[in-house]
């Protein structure tokens, strides 16, 4: 059985499922039991599982990460939530020096089964400190797993896999995905960490995507299809480990690579994809790979300054066309999002941001 529910509800379902299955699962973070329940993702948990297992916390990101680590050493599976990824930067010490290292530096004696949910903001003037996508920072650290589900089903399936994984997992949710509706299987439904998802099959070009950029890519690929251009669209889902088999076999087939990212371009996941493909599949490439990511500057707040900052389906359409030797389309033909202002995900979106 599957239900049509939002991405946010899918996360809520995964939390309920996990906490019902295993008493050692606990959930905390600033605002997990407040009236908004982290954009609806933690609503009802405290009522169902009690204040010992579901609780608000001091504004102490670093120590509370260490607390999760300590609790996990004695068999607890903490799920910690941050309303914006940017706040979690205060916890990089505990994440990098302790969570990521513990299993290795003590010779495999203990492991750290914690899940850190991080929300990435975008639009509505989120600006420099409320919108950063640092998946490449986390993926750079050996010992961490990093997942970025793009669909409601993947959100549920990957959250359940993250919670029951015996390693620290960084679970990154894009705020613009929370309202998207999709078919989500009921019950204990899991998506394996490390497996990408081929969303569209085509021969002309390989598009590698992640998180919210997958939604823009789906729109772009649909339009490109109408123009006779067929794309392999791979949603990575897991950033660490990455499903290199799927990436390489697609590039070997198409010979062309476009890598999308929600983060800053330099030193990004897209950069790593291009580097690895260039090193291991160079002879298959028919032309230089291209990436679409954010410019290397802090996110501006004013709508006037942010106008061209975020990349949308139109950029994917025209970059793909250029790579395949076609002309750039006129704006009115390529701008799939043209009826929606650039600072909200869709017309149904009413906040809160």
């Amino acid at each position, binding site marked *: 059985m599957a239900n049509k529910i939002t991405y946010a509800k899918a996360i809520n379902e995964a939390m309920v499922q996990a906490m019902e299955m295993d008493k050692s699962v*606990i959930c905390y973070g600033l605002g997990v039991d407040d009236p908004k329940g982290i954009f609806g993702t933690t609503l009802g948990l405290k009522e169902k599982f009690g204040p*010992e*297992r579901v609780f608000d*916390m*001091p504004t*102490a990101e*670093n*120590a*509370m*990460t*260490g*607390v*999760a*680590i*300590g*609790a*996990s*050493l*004695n*068999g*607890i599976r903490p799920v910690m939530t941050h309303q914006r990824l940017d706040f979690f930067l205060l916890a990089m*010490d*505990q994440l990098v*020096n*302790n969570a990521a*290292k*513990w*299993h*290795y*530096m*003590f*010779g*495999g*004696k*203990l*492991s*750290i*089964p914690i899940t850190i949910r991080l929300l990435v903001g975008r639009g509505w003037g989120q600006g420099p400190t409320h919108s950063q996508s640092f998946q490449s920072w986390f993926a750079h650290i*050996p*010992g961490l*797993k990093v997942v970025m589900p793009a669909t409601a089903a993947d959100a549920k399936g990957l959250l359940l896999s993250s919670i029951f994984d*015996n*390693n620290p997992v960084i679970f990154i949710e894009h705020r613009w995905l929370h309202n998207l509706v999709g078919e989500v299987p009921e019950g204990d439904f899991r998506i394996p960490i490390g497996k990408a998802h081929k969303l569209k099959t085509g021969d002309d070009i390989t598009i590698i995507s992640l998180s919210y950029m997958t939604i823009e890519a789906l729109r772009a690929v649909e339009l490109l299809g109408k123009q006779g251009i067929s794309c392999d669209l791979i949603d990575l889902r897991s950033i660490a480990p990455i499903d290199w088999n799927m990436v390489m076999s697609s590039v070997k087939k198409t010979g062309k690579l476009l890598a999308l990212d929600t983060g800053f371009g330099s030193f990004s996941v897209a950069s790593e994809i291009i580097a690895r493909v260039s090193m291991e599949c160079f002879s298959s490439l028919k032309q230089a790979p291209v990436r679409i990511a954010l410019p290397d500057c802090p996110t501006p707040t004013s709508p006037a300054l942010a106008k061209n900052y975020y990349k949308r389906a139109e950029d994917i359409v025209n970059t793909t066309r250029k790579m395949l030797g076609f002309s750039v389309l006129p704006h009115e033909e390529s701008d799939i999002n043209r009826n929606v202002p650039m600072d909200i995900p869709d017309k149904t979106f009413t906040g809160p941001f």
Partner: protein
Amino acid sequence: MKENTQILIELLQKMKRIRAVEETIASRYSEWKMRCPTHLCSGQEAVAAAVGQVLRKDDFAVSSHRAHGHYLAKGGDLNRMIAEIYGKSDGCSSGKGGSMHLIDTSVGFMGSTAIVGGTIPVGVGLALSIKLKKTNQVSCVFFGDGSIEEGVFYESVNFAVLKNLPVLFICENNFYSVYSPLKVRQPENRAIYKMVSGIGCRSEHGDGNNVVDVYDKVNTAVVSIRDGGGPMFFEFKTYRWREHCGHNFDNDLGYRTQEEYLSWKEKDPISAMESYMFKEKYITQNEIDEMQSEIQKEIEKAFEFAEKSPFPNLESALTDIYA
């Protein structure tokens, strides 16, 4: 406690054993077979021994870079600790941690790490797990005066107080963070334990070179923590004899005076305890000599064990990244 001869003897034995281990490491360090940063705790044995004596085997403890004493006093395996410092496969962390990263889960020693203050929240998290599992264990966190300057300390104590967690915070104030004296790091009139009391944590201080005093205070506190009394913080003043990292003495550097060092050496916790026990006839000179000789034999065996243990395979550098 003073009438319990058995405990007094065990305290003395624990301190002498830690001292002898540290001094053996110091004397053999220049063979360059122990190839990792090593922070010796000679001079600071009393706190480790007393706290280790109070804690049960199933209680938890975590510590920082200067952890040999805490690990041994909690019951950590000596052979495996020495092998770890040698980087051998029988080391307690399979050669991947070294002196700064010790673990022995069989006695509740859950890890020590090298970033100042890094294990304080981990100890608090262990205490949270104790509360969730409703056992009467205690989680002990060892750290130094430098940790008091880290934000994570305040975040952790706040949470422990907020949730009334069974944590024993043990601050060994040895006045130095590497070569930086306390006076360049904290206001001169501050008493650390009083400041912590301001956060709402029960807090006390004591002479970190007086093992009986430390034992009595911590013992009373741990009874109350087990009883649901919530976290307790101790500041014990003590002194590091050797250099911050390594096997030498470093008074020639000029960051501390020879006079200061000698005045603390006179407060040697082991000599003080020995004289006291000797005077009160809790122990004879023969028994002391025998104790020392047993310890020395055990340490010789531990070094032999470490020397004989093989190095890990090169391939194992790439294992244990994920569980």
